[in-house]
Protein backbone atom coordinates (compact mmCIF):
# COMPACT_ATOMS: atom_id res chain seq x y z
CA UNK A 1 0.00 0.00 0.00
CA UNK A 2 1.12 3.53 -0.79
CA UNK A 3 -1.36 5.64 1.15
CA UNK A 4 -4.53 5.29 3.18
CA UNK A 5 -7.49 7.61 2.81
CA UNK A 6 -8.20 9.13 6.22
CA UNK A 7 -10.79 11.60 4.92
CA UNK A 8 -12.14 11.47 1.39
CA UNK A 9 -12.73 15.14 0.63
CA UNK A 10 -15.66 16.43 -1.43
CA UNK A 11 -15.07 14.45 -4.62
CA UNK A 12 -11.80 12.61 -5.02
CA UNK A 13 -11.71 10.24 -7.98
CA UNK A 14 -9.17 8.26 -9.97
CA UNK A 15 -8.88 9.74 -13.47
CA UNK A 16 -6.68 9.23 -16.50
CA UNK A 17 -6.99 10.76 -19.97
CA UNK A 18 -10.34 9.10 -20.56
CA UNK A 19 -12.15 6.15 -22.04
CA UNK A 20 -11.96 6.39 -25.82
CA UNK A 21 -13.33 4.26 -28.63
CA UNK A 22 -16.59 3.22 -26.96
CA UNK A 23 -18.83 6.24 -27.40
CA UNK A 24 -20.85 4.36 -30.04
CA UNK A 25 -21.92 2.07 -27.18
CA UNK A 26 -23.01 5.09 -25.18
CA UNK A 27 -19.95 4.96 -22.90
CA UNK A 28 -18.89 8.49 -21.89
CA UNK A 29 -15.25 9.47 -22.35
CA UNK A 30 -14.84 10.75 -18.77
CA UNK A 31 -11.21 11.38 -17.79
CA UNK A 32 -9.59 14.36 -16.09
CA UNK A 33 -11.53 17.64 -16.23
CA UNK A 34 -8.20 19.50 -16.52
CA UNK A 35 -6.20 17.18 -18.76
CA UNK A 36 -3.35 19.69 -18.97
CA UNK A 37 -2.75 19.64 -15.21
CA UNK A 38 -3.03 15.84 -15.14
CA UNK A 39 -0.35 15.55 -17.77
CA UNK A 40 2.05 17.85 -15.95
CA UNK A 41 1.50 16.05 -12.64
CA UNK A 42 2.21 12.71 -14.33
CA UNK A 43 5.36 13.96 -16.04
CA UNK A 44 6.73 15.43 -12.80
CA UNK A 45 6.95 11.96 -11.29
CA UNK A 46 8.21 10.33 -14.50
CA UNK A 47 4.88 8.71 -15.46
CA UNK A 48 3.63 7.97 -18.96
CA UNK A 49 0.72 10.04 -20.32
CA UNK A 50 -1.72 7.20 -19.77
CA UNK A 51 -1.12 6.92 -15.99
CA UNK A 52 -4.00 7.53 -13.61
CA UNK A 53 -3.91 10.12 -10.82
CA UNK A 54 -6.31 11.48 -8.21
CA UNK A 55 -8.57 14.34 -9.22
CA UNK A 56 -9.23 16.34 -6.06
CA UNK A 57 -12.17 18.75 -6.01
CA UNK A 58 -12.62 21.91 -3.89
CA UNK A 59 -12.24 20.22 -0.49
CA UNK A 60 -9.27 17.89 -0.53
CA UNK A 61 -8.77 14.54 1.20
CA UNK A 62 -6.41 13.59 4.01
CA UNK A 63 -4.00 10.85 2.99
CA UNK A 64 -1.61 9.00 5.27
CA UNK A 65 1.45 7.63 3.50
CA UNK A 66 2.46 4.05 4.26
CA UNK A 67 5.75 4.28 2.40
CA UNK A 68 8.17 6.96 1.23
CA UNK A 69 6.46 8.11 -1.96
CA UNK A 70 7.25 10.40 -4.87
CA UNK A 71 4.22 12.53 -5.76
CA UNK A 72 3.41 15.70 -7.67
CA UNK A 73 0.51 18.16 -7.53
CA UNK A 74 -0.63 20.29 -10.43
CA UNK A 75 -3.77 22.24 -11.37
CA UNK A 76 -5.74 24.34 -8.89
CA UNK A 77 -4.03 25.48 -5.67
CA UNK A 78 -6.00 23.82 -2.87
CA UNK A 79 -3.34 24.65 -0.28
CA UNK A 80 -1.65 21.24 0.04
CA UNK A 81 0.27 20.64 3.25
CA UNK A 82 2.08 17.99 5.23
CA UNK A 83 1.54 18.40 8.95
CA UNK A 84 0.55 22.07 8.47
CA UNK A 85 3.61 22.90 6.40
CA UNK A 86 2.83 24.02 2.80
CA UNK A 87 3.83 21.53 0.10
CA UNK A 88 4.99 23.07 -3.18
CA UNK A 89 3.00 22.41 -6.33
CA UNK A 90 4.24 21.76 -9.85
CA UNK A 91 7.38 19.91 -8.79
CA UNK A 92 8.14 16.39 -7.65
CA UNK A 93 7.86 15.89 -3.87
CA UNK A 94 9.04 12.99 -1.75
CA UNK A 95 6.72 12.37 1.19
CA UNK A 96 7.90 10.25 4.11
CA UNK A 97 6.00 7.22 5.34
CA UNK A 98 3.71 7.96 8.25
CA UNK A 99 3.12 11.56 7.15
CA UNK A 100 -0.25 13.03 6.28
CA UNK A 101 -1.01 15.06 3.17
CA UNK A 102 -3.96 17.37 3.70
CA UNK A 103 -5.51 20.33 1.90
CA UNK A 104 -6.80 23.73 2.96
CA UNK A 105 -8.67 26.36 0.99
CA UNK A 106 -9.17 26.88 -2.73
CA UNK A 107 -6.55 29.58 -3.33
CA UNK A 108 -6.81 29.29 -7.11
CA UNK A 109 -8.97 27.01 -9.24
CA UNK A 110 -10.89 24.10 -7.73
CA UNK A 111 -9.31 20.88 -9.02
CA UNK A 112 -5.85 19.60 -8.29
CA UNK A 113 -4.21 16.47 -9.65
CA UNK A 114 -2.17 14.27 -7.36
CA UNK A 115 0.10 11.92 -9.30
CA UNK A 116 1.99 9.04 -7.70
CA UNK A 117 5.22 7.78 -9.25
CA UNK A 118 4.23 4.75 -11.32
CA UNK A 119 0.55 5.73 -11.48
CA UNK A 120 -2.39 4.47 -9.42
CA UNK A 121 -2.80 0.72 -9.59
CA UNK A 122 -6.48 0.03 -10.23
CA UNK A 123 -7.75 -2.35 -12.89
CA UNK A 124 -8.62 -0.64 -16.18
CA UNK A 125 -12.30 -0.97 -17.11
CA UNK A 126 -13.05 -0.80 -20.83
CA UNK A 127 -9.55 0.47 -21.47
CA UNK A 128 -9.38 3.23 -18.87
CA UNK A 129 -8.90 3.72 -15.13
CA UNK A 130 -11.12 6.83 -15.11
CA UNK A 131 -13.99 6.79 -12.66
CA UNK A 132 -17.46 7.32 -14.12
CA UNK A 133 -19.64 7.37 -11.02
CA UNK A 134 -23.04 7.38 -12.79
CA UNK A 135 -22.47 3.93 -14.27
CA UNK A 136 -19.98 2.80 -11.59
CA UNK A 137 -17.17 2.32 -14.11
CA UNK A 138 -13.43 2.39 -13.41
CA UNK A 139 -11.44 3.86 -10.52
CA UNK A 140 -12.02 2.33 -7.10
CA UNK A 141 -15.22 0.25 -7.46
CA UNK A 142 -16.59 2.87 -9.85
CA UNK A 143 -17.02 5.45 -7.09
CA UNK A 144 -15.37 8.43 -5.44
CA UNK A 145 -12.83 7.61 -2.72
CA UNK A 146 -14.04 7.15 0.83
CA UNK A 147 -12.30 6.95 4.18
CA UNK A 148 -10.49 3.66 4.63
CA UNK A 149 -9.66 3.19 0.93
CA UNK A 150 -6.11 2.20 0.15
CA UNK A 151 -4.21 3.73 -2.74
CA UNK A 152 -1.58 1.54 -4.34
CA UNK A 153 0.92 2.96 -6.80
CA UNK A 154 2.54 0.84 -9.47
CA UNK A 155 6.17 0.50 -8.49
CA UNK A 156 8.43 2.63 -10.64
CA UNK A 157 11.63 1.27 -12.12
CA UNK A 158 13.52 4.49 -11.54
CA UNK A 159 13.31 6.33 -8.23
CA UNK A 160 13.60 9.92 -9.45
CA UNK A 161 15.08 12.54 -7.13
CA UNK A 162 15.94 9.78 -4.64
CA UNK A 163 18.69 11.92 -3.12
CA UNK A 164 15.99 14.14 -1.60
CA UNK A 165 15.24 11.38 0.89
CA UNK A 166 18.60 11.99 2.53
CA UNK A 167 18.08 15.74 2.79
CA UNK A 168 17.74 17.53 6.10
CA UNK A 169 14.36 18.92 5.01
CA UNK A 170 13.00 15.42 4.41
CA UNK A 171 14.02 14.24 7.88
CA UNK A 172 12.74 17.43 9.52
CA UNK A 173 9.47 18.15 7.60
CA UNK A 174 8.57 14.71 6.31
CA UNK A 175 8.77 15.89 2.71
CA UNK A 176 11.28 17.40 0.32
CA UNK A 177 11.17 18.89 -3.17
CA UNK A 178 13.84 20.03 -5.59
CA UNK A 179 14.43 23.75 -6.15
CA UNK A 180 13.14 23.71 -9.69
CA UNK A 181 9.48 23.77 -10.65
CA UNK A 182 7.21 24.13 -13.67
CA UNK A 183 6.13 27.73 -14.02
CA UNK A 184 2.34 27.97 -13.90
CA UNK A 185 0.42 31.21 -14.16
CA UNK A 186 -2.03 31.03 -11.29
CA UNK A 187 -3.09 34.59 -12.17
CA UNK A 188 -4.71 33.30 -15.36
CA UNK A 189 -6.72 30.78 -13.31
CA UNK A 190 -7.98 33.58 -11.10
CA UNK A 191 -9.14 35.98 -13.82
CA UNK A 192 -12.78 36.99 -13.17
CA UNK A 193 -14.84 36.93 -15.17
CA UNK A 194 -12.75 34.17 -16.72
CA UNK A 195 -12.34 34.54 -20.50
CA UNK A 196 -13.40 31.39 -22.36
CA UNK A 197 -13.03 31.23 -26.13
CA UNK A 198 -15.42 29.18 -28.26
CA UNK A 199 -16.10 28.17 -31.84
CA UNK A 200 -19.61 28.77 -33.21
CA UNK A 201 -21.71 25.60 -33.30
CA UNK A 202 -24.25 24.32 -35.78
CA UNK A 203 -27.21 26.30 -34.41
CA UNK A 204 -25.30 29.56 -33.81
CA UNK A 205 -26.57 31.15 -37.02
CA UNK A 206 -30.14 30.16 -36.16
CA UNK A 207 -30.06 32.20 -32.95
CA UNK A 208 -31.38 35.74 -33.24
CA UNK A 209 -28.58 38.35 -33.62
CA UNK A 210 -29.58 39.85 -30.29
CA UNK A 211 -29.22 36.47 -28.60
CA UNK A 212 -25.74 35.94 -30.07
CA UNK A 213 -24.81 39.40 -28.84
CA UNK A 214 -26.17 38.56 -25.38
CA UNK A 215 -24.09 35.41 -25.28
CA UNK A 216 -20.80 37.11 -26.14
CA UNK A 217 -21.36 40.26 -24.07
CA UNK A 218 -22.98 38.80 -20.96
CA UNK A 219 -21.29 37.59 -17.81
CA UNK A 220 -22.29 34.09 -16.72
CA UNK A 221 -22.01 32.39 -13.37
CA UNK A 222 -21.30 28.68 -12.83
CA UNK A 223 -24.48 27.27 -11.25
CA UNK A 224 -24.59 25.29 -8.02
CA UNK A 225 -25.71 22.06 -9.69
CA UNK A 226 -22.69 21.99 -12.02
CA UNK A 227 -20.63 18.82 -11.93
CA UNK A 228 -18.23 16.69 -13.95
CA UNK A 229 -21.00 16.06 -16.48
CA UNK A 230 -21.89 19.65 -17.23
CA UNK A 231 -21.62 23.26 -16.10
CA UNK A 232 -24.99 24.97 -15.80
CA UNK A 233 -24.55 28.65 -16.51
CA UNK A 234 -26.72 31.36 -15.00
CA UNK A 235 -26.97 35.09 -15.36
CA UNK A 236 -28.27 35.60 -18.90
CA UNK A 237 -31.29 33.72 -20.20
CA UNK A 238 -31.14 33.12 -23.93
CA UNK A 239 -34.05 32.57 -26.30
CA UNK A 240 -33.38 29.53 -28.46
CA UNK A 241 -35.97 30.70 -31.03
CA UNK A 242 -36.26 28.84 -34.32
CA UNK A 243 -33.80 26.00 -34.11
CA UNK A 244 -36.51 23.60 -35.23
CA UNK A 245 -36.71 19.90 -34.57
CA UNK A 246 -33.27 18.64 -33.59
CA UNK A 247 -32.24 15.03 -33.98
CA UNK A 248 -29.88 13.85 -31.24
CA UNK A 249 -26.26 13.55 -32.33
CA UNK A 250 -22.70 13.42 -31.03
CA UNK A 251 -21.58 16.07 -28.55
CA UNK A 252 -18.04 16.99 -27.49
CA UNK A 253 -16.16 18.03 -24.35
CA UNK A 254 -17.06 21.73 -24.33
CA UNK A 255 -20.29 21.63 -26.36
CA UNK A 256 -22.46 24.55 -25.19
CA UNK A 257 -26.09 23.45 -25.27
CA UNK A 258 -29.12 25.68 -24.96
CA UNK A 259 -32.00 23.88 -23.21
CA UNK A 260 -35.54 25.32 -23.24
CA UNK A 261 -35.08 27.17 -19.92
CA UNK A 262 -32.53 29.44 -21.65
CA UNK A 263 -29.62 28.72 -19.28
CA UNK A 264 -26.69 27.31 -21.30
CA UNK A 265 -25.03 24.06 -20.26
CA UNK A 266 -21.39 23.36 -21.12
CA UNK A 267 -20.77 19.62 -21.41
CA UNK A 268 -17.71 18.48 -19.48
CA UNK A 269 -15.69 15.27 -18.99
CA UNK A 270 -18.57 12.98 -17.92
CA UNK A 271 -20.89 14.22 -20.70
CA UNK A 272 -23.25 11.81 -22.42
CA UNK A 273 -22.24 10.71 -25.89
CA UNK A 274 -25.15 12.37 -27.73
CA UNK A 275 -27.40 15.35 -27.10
CA UNK A 276 -30.55 16.82 -28.58
CA UNK A 277 -30.57 20.47 -27.52
CA UNK A 278 -29.60 23.37 -29.80
CA UNK A 279 -25.84 24.03 -29.75
CA UNK A 280 -24.41 27.49 -29.36
CA UNK A 281 -20.88 26.28 -29.98
CA UNK A 282 -17.93 24.40 -28.56
CA UNK A 283 -15.38 25.74 -26.07
CA UNK A 284 -11.87 25.94 -27.54
CA UNK A 285 -10.02 22.87 -26.26
CA UNK A 286 -7.13 25.05 -25.15
CA UNK A 287 -9.47 26.82 -22.70
CA UNK A 288 -11.11 23.67 -21.26
CA UNK A 289 -8.49 23.46 -18.47
CA UNK A 290 -9.36 27.03 -17.42
CA UNK A 291 -13.08 26.28 -17.53
CA UNK A 292 -12.56 23.06 -15.53
CA UNK A 293 -10.95 25.11 -12.75
CA UNK A 294 -14.10 27.26 -12.28
CA UNK A 295 -16.30 26.29 -9.35
CA UNK A 296 -19.94 27.14 -8.64
CA UNK A 297 -20.32 30.88 -8.19
CA UNK A 298 -17.32 31.80 -10.37
CA UNK A 299 -17.99 34.09 -13.34
CA UNK A 300 -17.01 33.83 -16.99
CA UNK A 301 -17.47 35.46 -20.39
CA UNK A 302 -17.36 33.98 -23.87
CA UNK A 303 -15.35 35.15 -26.85
CA UNK A 304 -16.03 33.78 -30.33
CA UNK A 305 -13.00 32.66 -32.36
CA UNK A 306 -12.65 30.84 -35.66
CA UNK A 307 -12.17 27.10 -35.92
CA UNK A 308 -8.77 27.64 -37.55
CA UNK A 309 -7.68 29.81 -34.60
CA UNK A 310 -8.96 27.24 -32.10
CA UNK A 311 -6.93 24.54 -33.85
CA UNK A 312 -3.87 26.81 -33.82
CA UNK A 313 -4.38 27.17 -30.05
CA UNK A 314 -4.48 23.37 -29.72
CA UNK A 315 -1.14 23.21 -31.50
CA UNK A 316 0.39 26.05 -29.49
CA UNK A 317 -0.65 24.36 -26.25
CA UNK A 318 0.77 21.02 -27.43
CA UNK A 319 4.08 22.71 -28.28
CA UNK A 320 4.22 24.47 -24.91
CA UNK A 321 3.45 21.20 -23.15
CA UNK A 322 6.22 19.42 -25.05
CA UNK A 323 8.71 22.09 -23.96
CA UNK A 324 7.60 21.74 -20.35
CA UNK A 325 7.93 17.97 -20.60
CA UNK A 326 11.41 18.24 -22.06
CA UNK A 327 12.56 20.51 -19.25
CA UNK A 328 10.98 18.24 -16.63
CA UNK A 329 12.79 15.27 -18.12
CA UNK A 330 16.11 17.10 -18.11
CA UNK A 331 15.59 18.15 -14.49
CA UNK A 332 14.49 14.68 -13.35
CA UNK A 333 17.54 13.07 -14.90
CA UNK A 334 20.00 15.72 -13.76
Amino acid at each position, binding site marked *: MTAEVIRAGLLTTVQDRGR*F*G*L*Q*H*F*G*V*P*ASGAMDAYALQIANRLVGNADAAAALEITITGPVLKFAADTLIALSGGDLEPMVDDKPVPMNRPVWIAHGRRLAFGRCNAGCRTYLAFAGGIDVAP*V*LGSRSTYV*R*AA*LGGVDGRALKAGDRIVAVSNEIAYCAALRNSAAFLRDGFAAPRWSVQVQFERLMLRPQRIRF*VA*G*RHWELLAPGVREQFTSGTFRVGASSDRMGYRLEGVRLESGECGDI*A*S*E*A*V*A*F*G*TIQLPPDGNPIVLMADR*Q*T*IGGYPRI*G*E*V*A*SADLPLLAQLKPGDTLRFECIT*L*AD*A*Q*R*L*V*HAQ*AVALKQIEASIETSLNA
Partner: protein
Amino acid sequence: MNFLPLGDCGLLVEVGAHADAETISRVRALADHLAQLDLPGIRDLVPALCTIGIHYDPEQWRDVTAKRSPYEILAARIQKSLPDLSALAASDGQAREIPVCYEADYALDLASLARMQGLSPEQVIEMHSGVQYSVYMIGFAPGFAYLGPLDERLTVPRRETPRTRVPAGSVAVANQYTGIYPGALPGGWHVIGRTPLRLFDSSCSQPSLLRAGDQVRFTPIGVAEFRRLQDAKQ
Protein backbone atom coordinates in the same frame (compact mmCIF):
# COMPACT_ATOMS: atom_id res chain seq x y z
CA MET B 1 -23.38 14.96 -47.56
CA ASN B 2 -22.47 17.84 -45.29
CA PHE B 3 -19.40 18.39 -43.14
CA LEU B 4 -19.74 20.46 -39.97
CA PRO B 5 -17.20 21.19 -37.26
CA LEU B 6 -17.92 19.89 -33.76
CA GLY B 7 -15.44 22.16 -32.02
CA ASP B 8 -11.70 21.90 -32.68
CA CYS B 9 -11.44 18.14 -32.00
CA GLY B 10 -14.57 16.88 -33.71
CA LEU B 11 -16.57 16.94 -36.89
CA LEU B 12 -20.03 15.85 -37.95
CA VAL B 13 -20.82 14.21 -41.25
CA GLU B 14 -24.47 14.90 -42.01
CA VAL B 15 -26.02 12.25 -44.22
CA GLY B 16 -29.56 13.62 -44.38
CA ALA B 17 -31.66 16.36 -42.84
CA HIS B 18 -34.40 14.12 -41.46
CA ALA B 19 -34.24 10.97 -39.37
CA ASP B 20 -36.04 8.78 -41.91
CA ALA B 21 -35.32 5.11 -42.49
CA GLU B 22 -33.09 5.76 -45.51
CA THR B 23 -30.95 8.33 -43.71
CA ILE B 24 -30.58 6.14 -40.64
CA SER B 25 -29.46 3.18 -42.74
CA ARG B 26 -26.99 5.36 -44.70
CA VAL B 27 -25.54 6.70 -41.48
CA ARG B 28 -24.84 3.14 -40.42
CA ALA B 29 -23.29 2.22 -43.76
CA LEU B 30 -21.08 5.29 -43.64
CA ALA B 31 -20.07 4.51 -40.04
CA ASP B 32 -18.99 1.01 -41.17
CA HIS B 33 -17.07 2.57 -44.05
CA LEU B 34 -15.30 5.08 -41.80
CA ALA B 35 -14.40 2.40 -39.26
CA GLN B 36 -12.82 0.33 -42.03
CA LEU B 37 -10.81 3.31 -43.29
CA ASP B 38 -9.02 3.24 -39.93
CA LEU B 39 -7.78 6.83 -40.24
CA PRO B 40 -5.08 7.97 -37.80
CA GLY B 41 -5.91 10.10 -34.78
CA ILE B 42 -9.58 9.10 -34.62
CA ARG B 43 -10.67 8.70 -31.00
CA ASP B 44 -14.34 7.87 -31.49
CA LEU B 45 -16.94 7.38 -34.22
CA VAL B 46 -20.45 8.12 -32.98
CA PRO B 47 -23.27 7.31 -35.38
CA ALA B 48 -26.60 8.96 -34.55
CA LEU B 49 -29.81 9.43 -36.55
CA CYS B 50 -28.72 11.88 -39.28
CA THR B 51 -25.02 12.31 -38.56
CA ILE B 52 -21.83 10.58 -37.57
CA GLY B 53 -19.71 12.35 -35.00
CA ILE B 54 -15.96 11.92 -35.44
CA HIS B 55 -13.77 12.79 -32.46
CA TYR B 56 -10.19 13.29 -33.63
CA ASP B 57 -6.83 14.60 -32.53
CA PRO B 58 -6.18 17.73 -34.63
CA GLU B 59 -2.44 17.39 -34.00
CA GLN B 60 -2.46 14.30 -36.19
CA TRP B 61 -4.13 16.16 -39.06
CA ARG B 62 -1.89 19.19 -39.11
CA ASP B 63 -0.44 20.56 -42.30
CA VAL B 64 3.06 21.85 -41.49
CA THR B 65 2.60 24.74 -43.89
CA ALA B 66 -0.60 25.53 -41.95
CA LYS B 67 -2.39 26.56 -45.14
CA ARG B 68 -5.37 24.43 -44.26
CA SER B 69 -6.75 23.63 -40.82
CA PRO B 70 -6.73 20.06 -39.50
CA TYR B 71 -10.52 20.12 -39.88
CA GLU B 72 -10.26 20.97 -43.58
CA ILE B 73 -7.63 18.29 -44.17
CA LEU B 74 -9.58 15.55 -42.41
CA ALA B 75 -12.87 16.54 -44.07
CA ALA B 76 -11.18 16.48 -47.48
CA ARG B 77 -9.62 13.09 -46.73
CA ILE B 78 -13.00 11.61 -45.79
CA GLN B 79 -14.72 13.24 -48.76
CA LYS B 80 -12.14 11.71 -51.09
CA SER B 81 -12.70 8.25 -49.63
CA LEU B 82 -16.45 8.34 -50.00
CA PRO B 83 -17.89 5.87 -52.44
CA ASP B 84 -21.18 6.56 -54.14
CA LEU B 85 -23.78 6.72 -51.37
CA SER B 86 -25.99 4.23 -53.20
CA ALA B 87 -23.06 1.79 -53.25
CA LEU B 88 -22.70 2.02 -49.47
CA ALA B 89 -24.49 -0.90 -47.90
CA ALA B 90 -24.72 -1.36 -44.17
CA SER B 91 -23.63 -4.73 -42.88
CA ASP B 92 -26.46 -6.81 -41.50
CA GLY B 93 -27.00 -6.27 -37.83
CA GLN B 94 -27.62 -9.17 -35.50
CA ALA B 95 -31.15 -10.42 -34.91
CA ARG B 96 -32.01 -10.24 -31.21
CA GLU B 97 -34.96 -11.56 -29.26
CA ILE B 98 -35.54 -9.57 -26.10
CA PRO B 99 -37.92 -11.22 -23.61
CA VAL B 100 -40.14 -8.63 -21.93
CA CYS B 101 -42.50 -9.03 -19.00
CA TYR B 102 -45.40 -6.61 -19.52
CA GLU B 103 -47.07 -7.52 -16.19
CA ALA B 104 -48.27 -4.65 -13.99
CA ASP B 105 -45.42 -4.83 -11.47
CA TYR B 106 -42.90 -4.13 -14.21
CA ALA B 107 -45.03 -1.98 -16.52
CA LEU B 108 -45.28 1.17 -14.43
CA ASP B 109 -46.92 3.29 -17.14
CA LEU B 110 -48.68 0.69 -19.29
CA ALA B 111 -52.16 1.39 -17.94
CA SER B 112 -51.83 5.18 -18.14
CA LEU B 113 -50.31 5.05 -21.63
CA ALA B 114 -53.13 2.78 -22.83
CA ARG B 115 -55.73 5.15 -21.36
CA MET B 116 -54.04 8.16 -22.92
CA GLN B 117 -54.11 6.55 -26.35
CA GLY B 118 -57.58 5.05 -26.04
CA LEU B 119 -56.25 1.49 -26.18
CA SER B 120 -56.39 -1.53 -23.93
CA PRO B 121 -53.13 -2.64 -22.25
CA GLU B 122 -53.33 -5.84 -24.31
CA GLN B 123 -53.45 -3.81 -27.53
CA VAL B 124 -50.38 -1.82 -26.46
CA ILE B 125 -48.47 -5.05 -25.75
CA GLU B 126 -49.52 -6.48 -29.11
CA MET B 127 -48.45 -3.36 -31.00
CA HIS B 128 -45.16 -3.13 -29.15
CA SER B 129 -44.17 -6.78 -29.42
CA GLY B 130 -45.65 -7.60 -32.81
CA VAL B 131 -43.00 -5.93 -34.96
CA GLN B 132 -39.30 -5.90 -35.69
CA TYR B 133 -37.26 -2.85 -34.70
CA SER B 134 -33.90 -1.53 -35.78
CA VAL B 135 -31.40 -0.16 -33.29
CA TYR B 136 -31.02 3.43 -34.52
CA MET B 137 -28.31 4.51 -32.12
CA ILE B 138 -26.86 3.94 -28.66
CA GLY B 139 -26.63 6.89 -26.33
CA PHE B 140 -28.04 8.69 -23.28
CA ALA B 141 -26.37 6.07 -21.04
CA PRO B 142 -23.94 3.18 -21.60
CA GLY B 143 -25.82 0.58 -23.66
CA PHE B 144 -29.07 2.57 -23.96
CA ALA B 145 -30.50 1.69 -27.39
CA TYR B 146 -32.96 3.84 -29.34
CA LEU B 147 -35.19 1.53 -31.40
CA GLY B 148 -37.74 2.17 -34.09
CA PRO B 149 -39.95 2.50 -35.99
CA LEU B 150 -42.54 2.58 -33.23
CA ASP B 151 -46.23 2.11 -34.03
CA GLU B 152 -47.63 5.64 -34.43
CA ARG B 153 -50.40 4.87 -31.96
CA LEU B 154 -47.73 4.44 -29.27
CA THR B 155 -45.84 7.69 -29.91
CA VAL B 156 -46.30 9.99 -26.93
CA PRO B 157 -44.14 12.78 -25.52
CA ARG B 158 -42.01 12.05 -22.49
CA ARG B 159 -43.62 12.10 -19.03
CA GLU B 160 -44.02 15.60 -17.69
CA THR B 161 -42.18 14.67 -14.53
CA PRO B 162 -39.26 12.32 -15.11
CA ARG B 163 -38.68 9.55 -12.57
CA THR B 164 -35.56 9.92 -10.47
CA ARG B 165 -34.96 6.20 -10.79
CA VAL B 166 -36.18 3.90 -13.55
CA PRO B 167 -35.35 0.24 -12.74
CA ALA B 168 -32.69 -1.56 -14.79
CA GLY B 169 -34.13 -3.48 -17.75
CA SER B 170 -37.20 -1.23 -18.06
CA VAL B 171 -38.60 -1.21 -21.59
CA ALA B 172 -40.09 2.16 -22.38
CA VAL B 173 -41.45 4.42 -25.11
CA ALA B 174 -41.17 8.16 -25.79
CA ASN B 175 -41.68 10.18 -28.95
CA GLN B 176 -41.06 7.90 -31.93
CA TYR B 177 -38.74 5.50 -30.11
CA THR B 178 -38.75 2.55 -27.80
CA GLY B 179 -35.74 1.90 -25.60
CA ILE B 180 -34.38 -0.23 -22.78
CA TYR B 181 -32.80 1.18 -19.62
CA PRO B 182 -29.54 -0.76 -19.16
CA GLY B 183 -29.17 0.27 -15.53
CA ALA B 184 -31.19 2.06 -12.85
CA LEU B 185 -31.27 5.63 -14.16
CA PRO B 186 -33.32 8.78 -13.96
CA GLY B 187 -35.62 9.02 -16.97
CA GLY B 188 -38.82 10.38 -18.44
CA TRP B 189 -39.88 7.60 -20.80
CA HIS B 190 -43.12 5.64 -20.27
CA VAL B 191 -42.22 2.25 -18.83
CA ILE B 192 -44.36 -0.53 -20.30
CA GLY B 193 -42.38 -3.63 -19.32
CA ARG B 194 -39.05 -5.04 -18.17
CA THR B 195 -36.50 -7.45 -19.58
CA PRO B 196 -34.41 -9.76 -17.39
CA LEU B 197 -31.50 -9.52 -19.88
CA ARG B 198 -28.35 -7.58 -19.06
CA LEU B 199 -27.98 -4.83 -21.64
CA PHE B 200 -24.58 -3.55 -20.54
CA ASP B 201 -21.66 -5.47 -19.08
CA SER B 202 -18.39 -3.59 -18.62
CA SER B 203 -16.40 -6.84 -18.38
CA CYS B 204 -17.12 -7.65 -22.06
CA SER B 205 -15.10 -6.22 -24.92
CA GLN B 206 -18.39 -5.36 -26.63
CA PRO B 207 -19.99 -4.06 -23.44
CA SER B 208 -23.37 -3.28 -25.01
CA LEU B 209 -25.66 -6.21 -25.89
CA LEU B 210 -27.11 -4.15 -28.76
CA ARG B 211 -25.33 -2.10 -31.38
CA ALA B 212 -26.62 0.24 -34.07
CA GLY B 213 -28.19 -1.75 -36.90
CA ASP B 214 -29.24 -4.79 -34.86
CA GLN B 215 -32.75 -6.11 -35.51
CA VAL B 216 -34.79 -6.52 -32.34
CA ARG B 217 -38.05 -8.25 -31.51
CA PHE B 218 -39.69 -8.16 -28.09
CA THR B 219 -41.17 -11.44 -26.85
CA PRO B 220 -43.80 -11.20 -24.08
CA ILE B 221 -43.05 -13.42 -21.06
CA GLY B 222 -44.83 -14.01 -17.76
CA VAL B 223 -43.61 -13.22 -14.26
CA ALA B 224 -42.41 -16.78 -13.61
CA GLU B 225 -40.30 -16.81 -16.77
CA PHE B 226 -38.95 -13.33 -15.96
CA ARG B 227 -37.80 -14.56 -12.52
CA ARG B 228 -36.31 -17.73 -13.97
CA LEU B 229 -34.27 -15.78 -16.52
CA GLN B 230 -33.23 -13.25 -13.94
CA ASP B 231 -32.02 -15.97 -11.58
CA ALA B 232 -30.16 -17.65 -14.44
CA LYS B 233 -28.30 -14.37 -15.08
CA GLN B 234 -26.81 -14.40 -11.57
